[in-house]
């Protein structure tokens, strides 16, 4: 069970691509990597791509909520994209889809932020 975090900055938007299984065991490293990246002064918004996420549980919800709070405290937005049906149900159950914007893919997410990639 592994999780890879890929980070990319486009203008003031941080793109986070999660690959693998996000659970309590892997949540810490995801939190640390994202936290550090979001702290960068020039980062304003975050796009989290779950396209290659093969598993997520409520520990993952916790990480998402934490990063949502972090970026909104900076006045930014968090968009989650490429959410599979299983993760979508978790977002619904927790009410997270009401505060986090869910979009189809990275491209749509970027243009919704006015970023041309």
């Amino acid at each position: 069970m592994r999780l890879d975090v890929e980070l990319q900055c486009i203008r003031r938007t941080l793109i986070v691509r999660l690959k693998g299984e996000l659970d309590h065991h892997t949540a810490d490293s995801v939190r640390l990597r994202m936290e550090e990246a979001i702290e960068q002064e020039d980062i304003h918004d975050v796009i989290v791509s779950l396209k290659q996420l093969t598993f997520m549980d409520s520990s993952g919800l916790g990480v998402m909520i934490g990063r949502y709070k972090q970026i909104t405290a900076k006045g930014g937005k968090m968009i989650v994209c490429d959410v599979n049906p299983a993760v979508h149900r978790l977002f619904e159950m927790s009410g997270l889809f009401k505060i986090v914007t869910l979009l189809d893919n990275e491209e749509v997410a970027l243009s919704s932020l006015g970023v041309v990639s």
Partner: protein
Amino acid sequence: MSANPSNYMTLTFASRSENEGFARVAVASFVSQLDPTLEELTDIKTVVSEAVTNAIIHGYEDVEDGEVTIYARIEADMLFLSVMDEGMGIADLDTARQPLYTSKPELERSGMGFTIMENFMDEVEVVSQVGKGTKISMKKRIESKKALYN
């Protein structure tokens, strides 16, 4: 290849977070003899993950020398699943089971573990004793894929 009534397994392992993934895979592999749909399998993996994670971080407070036990039994199309720890137990079950309640917000817990278990399983029963441990017993009827195609 079909599942005869009453097959079972018991799995005991050290309360270490690296076993969360292993526990999910083991239970999913056991349950796959019921030929569940992908959605059912994901539900079960998620539920195992929630209960095992709770045992590790709440029951044993991340101390790695505890033991987590999973018991799974298949009877016809029913899955019976329990997850047990001998950790600190839960003082107030009603509060604990409320959506979004967590005793460890500092660990960025979402408080959604019990809610997910209740949503993904047909029945969830929690028995806990402070200082003795916690046992979650769950049931789920598996709508076999076979039933859809035959």
